[in-house]
């Protein structure tokens, strides 16, 4: 290959490539030196008193591996800054969209990060099963007892051993709507499931298609429907039955499942109710979940059930607030007194028990971190009871945080995230997609039940 260097064209090519490389490299180098200047400047303004307990960790490094990438990663890195500046430790943040597969590969091969931010209890169990994860230190356990409910601690516990403290949380039991439309048409936010039905019928009487939904999401197509079903399972059969259902102590094709799915069908398979601004019932299968709620802005759809993180999908100039263009209300319980909330969240799982990793884990389980992180980010909350909701600026985050901290709330984690992968991220998605395109409820629940791995 080197003999070819005589060629003028090759030399030109090399010059071009190398030139581009040098320019990019120079740009990379120059800007990185800038950023280090900024770090030192900001360090002076932080009060280091709360960080004294972590001791001096100068020269130590903790690596964090997560599926959270740009733009959400910036708030994470910023929230680590005070800890880094005060203890002298370096946090190496690695975001990777293929986290959920790669973390298993890395854990199995013995190359895990110090800390992983795991988004599903199911994956957490798989990671603990590799034998590489280490149990949470006593300080973290104490913090979780102090700041979270027992339900959250249970999600981070595998086989009776507590491994991972909760990090962020999201609320899924929300219905997006247009406050101005509600005001103009005289609609009120429903407080029971029956009122929701009445409201829907009222909208139909006003010649509207009230609901819009979309479940297309690449290989995970179908997941928004699992959330619908879980929400109704939680409401119609109660949290105890929900837990049994998730852990497969009652079959997936039992009467409870059928009732929940039929209740979803009463909304989503009703041609009079869907699919506002997008088409007929079948268009639910082809509309992407990202675009499914946008018709609310155009006035062609009134209600869209989706999690708090959906706020990011509205165009930047949209005002997401109680007096703005769109907002969300809590998907009501069966009656006004019960408040079941379906949600999701992340957990910090450690693979090393070096002192600096323990210290960092402890820091992440404090209310200090939850408050710093919530203020640094848009669309992020924690179920940490120490989170000061009055300081959460974003209205939708405030609504979610208030819901999570409300003492009458019964929180339940997304069920499909806890089921075995063969069901939770495969069979359910496929069967739900078939269901919305015409398959009947019985076949659907039977097929999911069949897919459950034998114990």
């Amino acid at each position, binding site marked *: 290959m080197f003999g*070819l260097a005589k060629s003028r064209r090759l030399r030109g*090519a090399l010059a071009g*490539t190398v030139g581009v*490389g040098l320019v990019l490299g120079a740009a990379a180098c120059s*800007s990185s030196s800038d*950023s280090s200047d900024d770090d030192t400047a900001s360090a002076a303004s932080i009060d280091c008193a709360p960080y004294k307990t972590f001791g001096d960790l100068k020269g130590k490094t903790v690596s964090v591996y997560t599926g*959270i990438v740009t*733009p959400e990663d910036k708030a994470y890195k910023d929230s680590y800054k005070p800890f880094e500046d005060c203890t002298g430790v370096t946090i190496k943040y690695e975001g990777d969209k293929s986290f959920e597969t790669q973390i298993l*590969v890395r854990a199995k*091969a013995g190359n895990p990060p110090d800390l992983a931010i795991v988004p599903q209890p199911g994956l957490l169990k798989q990671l603990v099963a590799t034998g590489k994860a280490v149990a949470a230190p006593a300080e973290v356990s104490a913090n979780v007892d102090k700041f979270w409910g027992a339900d959250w601690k249970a999600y981070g516990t595998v086989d009776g051993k507590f491994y991972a403290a909760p990090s962020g949380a999201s609320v899924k039991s929300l219905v997006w709507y247009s406050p101005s439309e509600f005001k103009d048409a005289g609609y009120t936010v429903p407080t029971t499931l029956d009122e929701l039905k009445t409201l829907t019928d009222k909208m139909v009487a006003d010649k509207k298609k009230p609901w819009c939904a979309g479940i297309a999401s690449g290989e995970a197509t179908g997941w928004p429907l699992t959330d619908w079903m879980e929400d109704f399972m939680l409401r119609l059969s109660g949290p105890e039955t929900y837990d049994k259902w998730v852990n497969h102590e009652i079959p997936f094709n039992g009467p409870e499942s059928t009732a929940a799915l039929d209740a979803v069908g009463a909304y989503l398979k009703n041609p009079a109710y869907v699919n506002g601004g997008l088409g007929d019932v079948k268009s639910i299968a082809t509309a992407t979940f990202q675009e499914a709620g946008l018709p609310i802005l155009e006035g062609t759809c009134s209600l869209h059930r989706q999690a708090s993180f959906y706020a990011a999908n509205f165009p930047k100039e949209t005002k997401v607030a109680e007096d703005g263009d769109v907002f969300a209300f809590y998907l009501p319980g069966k009656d006004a007194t019960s408040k079941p909330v379906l949600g999701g969240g992340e957990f910090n799982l450690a693979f090393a028990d070096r002192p600096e990793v323990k210290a960092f884990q402890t820091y992440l389980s404090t209310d200090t971190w939850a408050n710093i992180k919530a203020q640094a980010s848009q669309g992020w909350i924690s179920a940490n009871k120490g989170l000061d909701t009055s300081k959460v600026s974003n209205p939708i985050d405030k609504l979610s945080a208030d819901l999570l901290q409300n003492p009458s709330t019964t929180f339940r984690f997304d069920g499909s995230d806890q089921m075995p992968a063969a069901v939770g991220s495969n069979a359910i998605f496929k069967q739900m997609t078939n269901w919305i395109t015409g398959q009947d409820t019985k076949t659907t629940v039977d097929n999911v039940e069949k897919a459950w791995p034998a114990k």
Partner: protein
Amino acid sequence: MTTALPSTEVLPAAVKDETTTSYAKRKLSSPWASLAALVIAILWTLPTFGLLVSSFRPERAIKTTGWWTFFSDPQVTLDNYKAVLDSEEGAGLGSFFINSIVISIPSVLIPLTLATIAAYAFAWIKFPGRNLLFLVIFALQIVPLQVTLIPLLTLYVDAGLANTFWTIWLSHSIFGLPLAIYLLHNFMREIPATLLEAARVDGAGHVAIFFRVLLPLLRPALAAFGIFQFLWVWNDLLVALTFAGGGDAVAPITVALANLSGTRGTAWHLLSAGAFVSIIVPVTIFLFLQRYFVRGLLAGSVKG
């Protein structure tokens, strides 16, 4: 990759007498054939061209309209490129670009060197079990590299190589070697034995024959495989994702591109600009070296 195989069939046609070439020329340069070639060329280039246009359009325009509306409503901005290159506010593709170069060059040179030597041994040195060994190496191409990911990573971790460039260099070399040996072996076999015998009569040993007789003749083949391997390594995501466990320090540009669109895909408008930063190198290499690319695939031995 299998396009390399027809070389033996093309060879006799190419060296036939003048009338065949002029016949072929007449046949191939018919206006219809030219038209077809032109249409195919345009169809194949159009998506890339659209990508290029998109990369210069403002975010809102990309997200709401197709790239062709650029011609009725030309809005040009460099914001996308700023966003992907800026290492503070944006994705900072620059340092990943350097990583990609650092990864690619050894990942091409290591298998190329080893494969040339191995191919020489298989082609011109007689030793017991040669055919069986060659068959085994040939068969290794069938093994999907996915099955090796976890065992290989375990070996690297045990050897203390994890989170360095070595894991990626070695992996690409391992995955590239079977095909490289097979390809180069076939090229070497096509060199007439008389040429080597003549060299041997003149007193040349294996080393002299290898460097002074074979290497100059193998140039097109080496160039072809070099380009193949380079493009493969540059565009590879799987190997890098699995083995570049060290974060930003060793990850190539493909890993950065995969993460560019954001956790929930909200920043997908940056992908066109990111893709163009990434394809500068392969496109330059391909444009300037395509002669060798084609020649390496088609040319026989002695023509060199």
